[in-house]
């Protein structure tokens, strides 16, 4: 009579409690696959009836409870897959009887307590995955006894302690993943004996001490992630054995010393992260030999010297990150040969000289950050000619001349920061249609012309900052109809005409600064509709008329500056209803009447200036209660 040896019921949307299955009737089973269903409940002792079972495949269900100790009776078990459930408790000690286990996958569960010692006896175990559980305690010494272990992944737990030196015995190990735990101590030098190691990941722990030099022996190593630890000492690449290393991440540590010249020995290196360390010395020109390099990020260190010319050889290079170092000298023209480059960040360094015209060749460039350097001169007009630019930051340099024409054509622009240079030209010619543009800062330049964005061309703008330029003309309707505008910051220009009443529709606007222009006529009452307004500065204009009563509806207003205008009438007593914390400056206007005592309700106000008006009467007694004031000018 035929007996059932295999039951394959995976991925069938089955439901029910696992215990209800009559395991005793299936005692001849070799393979039981119930994976990827909706079974719930615990793995009960009835499981022990499956005494001939080789493969147990219960993964991706909703199993709960603990693994019953009777599972130890399944002595023929070779493959145990329980991953992606809600199993808790610890692996029972009776599992030590499971000497035939070859593969154990219990990742993504809620196992607690330490990695059990039982694994130490399992000399046939090749694959052990316990990642993303709640395991604690240290890695047991006995781990070294799993001499045939090929892959070990215990990442994403709360394992503490140091890596036992016994790992030296795991010479078959190809894949070792310990990341996101709380391991401390140094990486033992015995790691150099794991000659088959291909992938070693120990990110996000508290590892200290130096990078062991013995790593240099690992000729098969492809992936090496040590980031986000407290590793110190210098990078030492001994010999030429790391020929297969592709992905190397040492970021976020306390590594010191220079980038070694023989980094060029890592001939297959594709991604290299060294950011956020204490690296000093120059970038070795040998970097130019790493022809497979795609991503090279060494930001936030103390690297000195200039960018080597040989960098231009890296034709596959996509991301080059040198932000926040002490790099000086010129940008080499060879940078224009990086034809695959998409992201180039050289911000916060001491680079000087002109931007080479060859940079115009970087057609795939979508992210260019040169912020805060000593670069000067005119930009190549076809900079980033591929018009793929998303992010352009050139601020805090001495660039002159017009904004490159290719910026106007870059319809994908999201963020533009050109603050503090000496760009000139007509602003309306410098920009075109930018439907994704959110943040734009053109402050401190010599841009002239009028603000006249074509209808619907920049509807996503959240921040428009054009402080200190020579923009003239009126405030166009298109600007005050930008639906997502949070900050309108255009002081110190030559804007004239009236404040459009449509401005009231800007429901997200929290900062409005149009001070130091030539705006005239009244402050429109619609300003009271700005429900998000926190700071309003219309100082130094030619505004007339009264303060609109509707201003009392701006309940979030913290700072109101209207100084140096021709505003008249009484000081609005309802201003006292606004809980302003910062400044109320109405000085240098034509306000008449008495100082309203209601202003003393502004108990949190820090600065009150009503000077240089035509006010009469006394200072209200209640002002003595404005204890927050650090400045009071009523002269």
């Amino acid at each position, binding site marked *: 009579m035929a007996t059932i040896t295999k039951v394959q019921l995976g991925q069938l949307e089955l439901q029910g409690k696992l215990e209800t299955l009559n395991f005793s009737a299936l005692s001849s089973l070799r393979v039981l696959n119930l994976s990827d269903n909706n079974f719930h409940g615990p793995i009960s002792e009835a499981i022990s009836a499956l005494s001939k079972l080789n493969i147990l495949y219960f993964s991706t269900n909703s199993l709960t409870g603990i693994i019953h100790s009777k599972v130890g009776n399944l002595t023929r078990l070779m493959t145990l*897959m329980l*991953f992606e459930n809600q199993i808790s408790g610890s692996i029972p000690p009776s599992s030590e009887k499971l000497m035939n286990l070859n*593969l154990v*996958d219990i*990742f993504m569960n809620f196992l607690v307590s330490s990695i059990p010692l039982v694994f130490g006896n399992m000399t046939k175990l090749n*694959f052990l*995955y316990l*990642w993303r559980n709640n395991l604690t305690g240290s890695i047991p010494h006995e781990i070294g006894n799993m001499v045939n272990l090929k*892959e070990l*992944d215990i*990442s*994403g737990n709360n394992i503490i302690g140091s890596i036992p030196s016994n790992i030296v015995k795991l010479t078959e190990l190809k894949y070792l*993943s310990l*990341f*996101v735990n709380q391991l401390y101590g140094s990486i033992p030098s015995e790691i150099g004996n794991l000659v088959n190691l291909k992938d070693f*990941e120990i*990110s996000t722990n508290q590892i200290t001490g130096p990078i062991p030099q013995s790593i240099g022996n690992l000729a098969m190593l492809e992936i090496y*992630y040590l980031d986000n630890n407290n590793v110190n000492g210098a990078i030492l690449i001994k010999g030429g054995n790391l020929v297969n290393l592709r992905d190397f991440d040492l970021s976020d540590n306390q590594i010191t010393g220079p980038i070694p010249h023989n980094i060029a020995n890592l001939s297959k290196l594709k991604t290299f992260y060294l*950011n956020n360390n204490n690296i000093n010395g120059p970038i070795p020109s040998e970097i130019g030999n790493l022809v497979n390099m795609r991503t090279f990020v060494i*930001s*936030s260190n103390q690297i000195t010297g200039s960018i080597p010319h040989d960098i231009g050889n890296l034709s596959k290079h996509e991301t080059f990150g040198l*932000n*926040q170092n002490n790099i000086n000298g010129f940008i080499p023209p060879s940078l224009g040969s990086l034809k695959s480059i998409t992201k180039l960040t050289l*911000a*916060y360094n001491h680079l000087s000289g002109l931007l080479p015209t060859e940079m115009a060749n970087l057609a795939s460039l979508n992210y260019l*950050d040169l*912020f805060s350097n000593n670069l000067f001169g005119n930009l190549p007009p076809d900079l980033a000619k591929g018009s793929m630019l998303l992010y352009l930051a050139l601020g805090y340099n001495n660039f002159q001349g017009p904004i490159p024409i290719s910026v106007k054509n870059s319809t994908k622009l999201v963020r533009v*920061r050109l603050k503090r240079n000496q760009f000139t030209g007509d602003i309306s010619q410098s920009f075109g249609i930018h439907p994704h543009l959110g*943040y734009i*800062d053109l402050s401190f330049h010599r841009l002239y012309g009028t603000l006249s964005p074509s209808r619907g061309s920049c509807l996503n703008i*959240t*921040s428009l900052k054009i402080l200190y330029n020579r923009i003239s003309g009126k405030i166009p309707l298109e600007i005050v109809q930008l639906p997502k505008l*949070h*900050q309108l910051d255009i002081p110190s220009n030559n804007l004239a005409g009236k404040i459009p009443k449509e401005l009231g529709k800007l429901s997200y606007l*929290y900062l409005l600064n149009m001070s130091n222009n030539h705006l005239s006529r009244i402050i429109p009452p619609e300003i009271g509709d700005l429900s998000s307004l*926190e700071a309003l500065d219309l100082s130094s204009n030619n505004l007339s008329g009264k303060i609109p009563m509707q201003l009392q509806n701006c*309940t*979030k207003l*913290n700072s109101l500056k209207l100084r140096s205008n021709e505003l008249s009438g009484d000081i609005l007593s309802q201003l006292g209803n606004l809980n302003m*914390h910062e400044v109320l400056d109405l000085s240098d206007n034509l306000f008449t009447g008495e100082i309203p005592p209601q202003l003393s309700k502004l*108990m*949190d106000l820090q600065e009150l200036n009503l000077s240089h008006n035509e006010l009469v009467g006394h200072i209200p007694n209640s002002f003595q209660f404005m*204890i*927050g004031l*650090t400045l009071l000018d009523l002269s």
Partner: protein
Amino acid sequence: MASLLLPSLLLLLLAAPLAISTNSEGEALHALRTRLSDPRGVLQSWDPTLVNPCTWFHVTCDNHNHVIRVDLGNSNISGPLGPELAQLKHLQYLELYKNNFEGTIPEELGDLKNLVSIDLYDNNLHGSIPKSFGKLKTLRFMRLNNNKLTGSIPRELAKLSNLKVFDVSNNDLCGTIPVDGPFPTFSFQSFENNSRLNGPELQGLVAYDFGC
């Protein structure tokens, strides 16, 4: 075999984090943001991939790109405060009033040596006023009113000689009110609606945490 492919795929997802490239102050603010609920999207501009938080809305920096102000008053934000705010070493104004911040006031905020104003009023904060606030020597404004704070008013606050405005009204504080330092200048409204607060400290006669 499926089990070999699956872990490496999922590990790629685990090992490729949100590329946080901001500085430590941006990281601190980002860590706070991840715990908060922000239905109005007030924190939407808080992008941790930017080099520093100085262009984030409601964050103000000085000329050296250090955060000096965080202005999130009246923004419908809920969630706990955290110790990472203490990493904003140059912070002068911490304005978190009129929200639904919950949990306790982190004592690490006492490390903010440059703080001028701390406004946590009108939230759901509980626990006590940290004694470490006695270290905030430059503080001028401390408004913690309208929360669920308990415990006594720490005597250490009497060292804050620059404190001009102090409001702990509408809480559940107990014990007595200090009489040293700036405390005599505060009006009784600063302390009202604390049913277990017993009035000014009677120095030498009654232990100061009497009734707590």
